């Protein structure tokens, strides 16, 4: 850490972890120092009072997610940390290319496994992992989608290890959420901390809605000049409802719930005051299971009877496509580096975290022998549930995990414990290091586009590695520097 930081924040110590602000990077220039100096000028007290005013603002504006415990619903905000995370122009260049590479691969993979299944026949991935996967939808077999795009919206969780190398932790290929916070966080920074940002050129984040709408129009069936796009939400009781509202507004399309839509003669319509109006593309934030009670869960009250029929007739587009969950499964993830190479003939631009697959004997033995050093994760879960961090678990916890894994090894993977990078974060005892990850969002219609930056989630608790909002994580504004700053930041 260079002297300037040392003088400004004598207590700040990122330890063995890569620090997203103080670590030297070739093209970051003087930006981190400016930031540190500006924070110093504002002072801790003023930072805290501005941060708390900003949080009240979020509550008033209803930028919230809803947490349900027993019978009560509580509107919570995603805690916001005012010290941004900075990505340099060259880092972003790599991230952007890596994200596109990954989404391209995932789309080719999905087209293949719902088509000829060449990737399985060629022995790249075991058939059982694909066709035996609970998220594989046989209904999708031999049903080509426009432009081969299955993942219209994808979020890729990326972390940074002790050396500062990026690693892909997880693909989110179903209905990834969090993008609204990327944009709201930027607005919040502009409103509340304009003095931190003054004069620093950043890549803008406000093009997301337009891009999403354009992609939805590109995949619409037929040749409508202006296809009707809708956002299908489970409704106001869903924890991500704010985001659904946000996206509907940014796209300028109606937010509908299942009851608003009806299928007649294999075409989808929405119920308006002047009768039924045709719908061409549905950006759905509803899980596969609930989409159509005629095909999936018959007890679904959120879906639209006949929707899949209309889709298969080519009368409506659904984004993301049905059956994409198989691609973001934690077991399939382990094979991604080989799958990328198989389709594109390229090495992954950003590597996976090393993954041991417990359904394979070697992986299982290794995992069981090293439980205390590994992070174990159930496959097919999301939101950070069911994860055990070996080095932090008690003996009893490890024994429970051992029994659970042995009972059903197919359901588990393990990974080495990665020392996630940290960023300076405003905490009760001053500015301290907190662990971070990054979720860039990629939109794909005909082509792919990556929203500059992404959601930087931060574990607000000291030492915690779990950044999920459902488990007390917060977020930061993510700055992508719009230009390469000279060889400044002398460290």
């Amino acid at each position, binding site marked *: 850490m260079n002297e300037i930081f040392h003088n400004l924040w004598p207590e700040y110590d990122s330890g063995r972890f890569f620090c997203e602000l103080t670590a030297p990077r070739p093209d970051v220039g003087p930006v981190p120092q400016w930031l540190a100096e500006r924070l110093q000028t504002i002072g801790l007290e003023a930072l805290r009072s501005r941060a708390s005013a900003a949080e009240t603002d979020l509550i008033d504006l209803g930028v919230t997610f809803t947490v349900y415990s027993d019978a009560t619903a509580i509107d919570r905000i995603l805690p916001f940390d005012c010290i941004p995370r900075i990505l340099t122009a060259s880092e972003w260049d790599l991230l952007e290319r890596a994200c596109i590479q990954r989404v391209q691969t995932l789309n080719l993979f999905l087209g293949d496994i719902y088509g000829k299944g060449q990737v399985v026949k060629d022995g790249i991935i075991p058939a059982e992992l694909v066709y035996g996967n609970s998220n594989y939808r046989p209904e999708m077999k031999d049903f080509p989608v426009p432009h081969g795009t299955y993942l219209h919206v994808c979020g890729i969780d990326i972390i940074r290890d002790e050396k500062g190398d990026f690693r892909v932790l997880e693909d989110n290929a179903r209905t990834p959420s969090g993008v609204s916070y990327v944009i709201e966080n930027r607005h919040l920074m502009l409103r509340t901390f304009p003095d931190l940002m003054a004069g620093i050129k950043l890549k803008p984040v406000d093009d997301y809605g337009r891009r999403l709408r354009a992609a939805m129009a590109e995949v619409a069936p037929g040749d409508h000049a202006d296809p009707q796009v809708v956002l299908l939400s*489970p409704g106001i009781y869903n924890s991500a409802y704010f985001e659904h509202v946000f996206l509907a507004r940014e796209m300028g399309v109606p937010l509908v719930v299942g009851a608003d839509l009806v299928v007649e003669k294999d075409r989808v319509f929405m119920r308006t005051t*002047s009768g039924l*109006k045709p719908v061409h593309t549905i950006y759905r934030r509803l899980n596969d299971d609930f989409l159509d009670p005629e095909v999936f869960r018959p007890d679904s009250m959120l879906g639209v009877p006949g929707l899949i029929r209309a889709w298969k007739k080519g009368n409506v587009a659904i984004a993301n496509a049905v059956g994409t969950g198989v691609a973001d499964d934690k077991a399939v993830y382990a094979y991604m580096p080989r799958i990328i190479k198989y389709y594109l003939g390229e090495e992954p631009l950003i590597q996976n975290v090393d993954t041991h697959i417990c359904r394979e004997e070697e992986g299982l033995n290794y995992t069981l022998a090293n439980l205390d050093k590994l992070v174990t994760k159930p496959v097919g879960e999301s939101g950070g549930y069911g994860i055990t961090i070996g080095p932090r678990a008690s003996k009893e916890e490890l024994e429970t995990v051992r029994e659970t894994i042995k009972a059903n090894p197919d359901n588990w993977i393990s990974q080495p414990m990665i020392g996630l990078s940290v960023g300076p974060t405003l905490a009760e005892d001053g500015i301290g290091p907190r662990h971070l990850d990054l979720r860039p969002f990629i939109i794909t219609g005909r082509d792919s586009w990556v929203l500059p930056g992404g959601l930087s989630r931060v574990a607000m608790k000291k030492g915690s590695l779990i950044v999920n909002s459902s488990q007390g994580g917060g977020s930061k504004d993510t700055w992508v520097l719009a230009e390469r700053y000279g060889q400044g930041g002398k460290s």
Partner: protein
Amino acid sequence: MNHMRDPGLLARDAEGLFWMARYLERVENIARLIDVTQSFESPGFETEAWYGLIRINADEANFRERGFSADAVHVKRFYLLDKGNSTSIPACLEGARTNARTLRPLMSTEMWRQINMFHRFVSRITPENLEGDALSRLCTKIKEGVQAHTGITQGTLHRDQGWYFYELGRYIERADQTTRMLDIKYTALLPRGKEEKRVAELTQWNAILRAAAGYHAFKRQARAQFAPEDVVHFLLRDPSSPRSALLCIRRIESHLDDLRRYYGLSTVAEALELSEMLRELILEKPLGHILATGLHEYLDLIQIHLHELAGAVGRVFFRDWRPAPISAQKQVQTQVSA
């Protein structure tokens, strides 16, 4: 050339706008009624005055079932604190906010923010706020909360067909509430002495005019000699009084007509017919006759017609859409996003 398209309006959103407006209008009017009731209170007869509020809202059964007894404190709590009473201010505001939540894609950020903050204010009303002079201040704050909403809506809500449904809800509710405000006279007690009675009656009519925000305007146009039918005329038939039943019904007719004219909603016919009948009902009979044969029954009849009109708007425009059963909520919550 105009390249913009008419985005249409979801039937569910039309219904949401209609009800959000109704709920908020109701909140303002309950606050007005409570304020006027307080001025009807005469020493020794507090209970009668306050229980009158329960009667004009036809809340007798509801009030009993919620476990309240007929005294002033309980009536105030029933309307200002009891979230479980569907006709209370907190419950109406909850209803307004739930609708607002579904309408957020259509509403301005300012509207949502104000409802959100107003909701928080109302959910924090305490029993102390209902005591003594605090009550009138509380009513003022509540009225101002709705007025802020109305003003923000006026200045920021997009004037497409959604706005018409919002206005329909507001005016149907307002007309209904004005008739209830007049009806409060029906339950009010009067002293026996002739002169005392005359003074008390004048005080009560004035209080009603103040509750309807019409006191000064009424004075400007009333005869020197006070006559009760002038007040009734002012609140039912004056085309310039912003809360009169006639003004409300004329607005309703004009909005329905605009929906047909500008948005091609020819299905307004049934509702238009009902509103014409309603207008005739308000205007046809001499007031002297109405007062002699029973104002209460007459007001009841207007309320029934308003109810039918609201029903017709619902049948025609919100028809296809059915809300999901409560059990669907659990499914909504299980829709996890990664």
